C-alpha cells in the first residue's frame, strides 16, 4: 500500500476527512449526522493516514494516546449530563445558552457537548483498535 501516489495523497485526504467529520458532527444537531458517524469518519481518516505513513507517525501526529482521547470524550459526555444538577433538572436534560459573540447568535447546548464527547470516544476507541491491528500487520 505504500505507493508514492498514496503516500502523497493520504495527508491531504486525511485532513479533508477530519474537516468533513467535524462538519458532520456539528450538522448532527438538526439534520442527519452526529457524533458517532463523525467519529467514524475521523477514525477512518486516521486509519488511512496510518496505512500510508505508518503507525509511528500517526501516534506522533495524534500526540495524545487514543485511549486518553476517548477518556476525554467520556468525561465530556458525562459532565454535560451532570451539569443539570445545578439547575434542578434530571440527569442529561438538554440545557441551552445563547450568548452573542461578535454579533452572531450562538446556540450552545449540553446536547452538543455530549455529542462532541461521543465523537471523541469513537475516534479514540476505533483508532486504538485500528492502530493495534495495523501494528500487528507490520510486525
Amino acid at each position: 500500500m505504500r505507493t508514492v501516489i498514496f503516500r502523497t495523497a493520504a495527508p491531504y485526504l486525511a485532513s479533508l476527512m477530519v474537516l468533513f467529520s467535524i462538519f458532520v458532527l456539528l450538522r448532527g444537531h438538526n439534520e442527519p449526522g452526529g457524533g458517532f458517524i463523525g467519529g467514524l469518519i475521523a477514525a477512518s481518516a486516521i486509519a488511512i493516514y496510518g496505512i500510508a505513513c505508518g503507525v509511528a507517525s500517526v501516534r506522533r501526529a495524534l500526540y495524545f494516546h487514543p485511549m486518553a482521547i476517548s477518556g476525554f470524550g467520556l468525561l465530556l459526555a458525562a459532565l454535560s449530563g451532570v451539569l443539570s444538577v445545578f439547575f434542578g433538572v434530571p440527569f442529561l436534560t438538554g440545557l441551552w445558552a445563547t450568548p452573542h459573540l461578535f454579533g452572531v447568535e450562538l446556540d450552545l447546548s449540553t446536547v452538543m457537548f455530549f455529542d462532541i464527547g461521543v465523537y471523541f470516544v469513537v475516534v479514540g476507541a476505533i483508532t486504538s483498535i485500528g492502530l493495534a491491528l495495523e501494528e500487528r500487520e507490520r510486525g
Partner: protein
Amino acid sequence: MAATESMNSIDTSAAMIAGPTQLADWLVLMPVVIPIVAGAVLLMARHEVRLHAMIAIGALGLAFAGAAGLLYRVVTEGTLVMTMGRWVPPFGISFSADALGATFATAATFVALAGAIFAIRDIDATGRRYGFYPFLLLMMAGVNGAFLTGDIFNLYVWFEVFVIASFGLLILGSEQRQLDGATKYAILNLVATTIFLVTTGMLYGTFGTLNMADIARKAPQLRESGPLMTIAALYLLAFGMKAAAFPLNFWLPASYHTPRIVTSALFGGLLTKVGIYALLRVFLTLMPVERGVLSELIAWLAAATMILGIMGALSQSDVRRIAGFVVISGIGVMLAGLALGSPVGVAGTVLYAVHSILVMTALYLLAGLMHEAGGSYSLHEVSGLYRSNPFLAAIALAVVLAASGLPPLSGLWPKVMLVKASVDGGAWWLAFAILLSGFLTTIALGRVFILAFWRNSPTAGDDSADFGGAGKARPGGYMVLGMLALPMIAIGVYPDPFMQLADVAAAGLLDPSGYIQAVFPGGGG
C-alpha cells in the same frame, strides 16, 4: 430549562416532567456516574499510574457512600425514580432503584472497593498502564447501572458496558492462558447478550414499550395475545447463560481462573450476580405468570447446577478452579428461590446473592493469598500454611464456613430460608438438593483447608521453625479479607436486619405496584 421554553413556544407540559428534581434524587445516579467520571479521568491520566489506585479507591468509596445512602433512602421512602432528560416515562429512560437494586448495588460497590484496595499490590505498574483501574471503574459503572436502571434496553446496554470492560480486565497481561480463556468467555458472553437483545426486540414488538414498570403494567392485558411465553423462555436462556446456570455454564470454569486473582475475585463476586438480578427482575416483576409455568424447569436446572457444579469442584486441584465451580454451585442455590417464587424463597435468594457477592470474592482473594504464602495454587503443592500464617488460617476458616453455609457465618441463613421455602412449597427434593450441595461444598472447601493449612509441608519435618519455603502473606491482603469477612460475620451472627431487607426486596419484586406507582405517579403514561 427556561431557555428551552423561550426558544420554542410549544407546550411541552404533557411530555416533560414539570417539578424540580431534588438534589437527593441524584443518589440514584451516584453509583453509576462517579465510576464513569473517575474511569474517564484515569483513561486520560494513563501514565500517572501512581495516582490510579488513589483515584479509583476514592471514587469507589464515594460510590459506595452513594449506594449506601440510596439503600437507606429506598428502604425508608420507597422506590426512587429519576427519568433522564426530563421526558415523562415511558418516553424517557428511567433509573428506578428499589430495595433489590439498591441492595445489590451497595454490596457490589463494597466488594469492588475491597478489590481495588487488594489490587494496590496485586497489579503492577504495567497492568495499571494497560488500564486495570479504568476498566474496573467502568465495569462497576456497568454493574451498578444494570442494578439500578428501569428500562430493559438500558439494562442491555449496561450489560454490554460491563462485559466490554471485563474483556479488558480478563486479557490484562496477554498470557497464553488468558487468551485461551478470554476467547471462550468473550464469544459465549457475546452470544448471551445478543440473545438478550433479540428477546428485547421481540418484547418491544409485543409491548411497544421498554420501560420495565410499563411492561409490568401492560403484561396482564397482553398475556392472551402476545408471545410472552416465548419471550420468557428466551430470557431464561440469555440470563441463564450470563449467570452460568447448568447447561450453559462451561465458559465460567474455562476462563475465571486465568486472569489476575483480583480480577477473578471481582468476576466471581459480581458478574454472575447481574445475571441473577436480571432473572429476578424479569421473571418476578415483569412476567410472574410465565415464571409459574417455567418454575418446574427452573427448579430442575437449579438442582442440576448446584450438584453438578460442586461435583466439578471436587474433581479439581487448583484452588482458583475449585472457586469457579463453587460460584456455579451458588448460582444453582439462587435459582432455587426463583423457581419457588414464594416470598420466603425469593428473600432467601436475595440474601444468598448478597452473601455470594461477598464470599466468592473473598474465596478468590484467599486463593491469591494462599498462592502468595504457599507459592502455588495447586493443592498438590501448597501445605503447612497454618503454621506459617495462623491469622490467614483463621480468616480462611471463616470463608470456608461461610461458603459452605455453616454457622455462625452468612451462608447459613439464606440456605435456611431456601430450605424452608422448598419444604413449604412441597419441593422436598429441592430442599434435599440444597442440603446435599451444601454438604459437598463443605467437603470440597474443607479439603482445601485441610490440605493447604493443616497438612505439614513435606520439607518441614518436625516442629522446628523451618516453614519449608512457605512465605508470609502480606498484611494488606489480610485487611481486605477482614473487610469482606466483617459483613459475612455480621449477617451470620445478627441476621435480623439483613433478613428484613431481603424481605422488603422480595416483597417489592413480588408485588410491583409500588414500583409502578413510583415510575408513573399520576397513573398515566
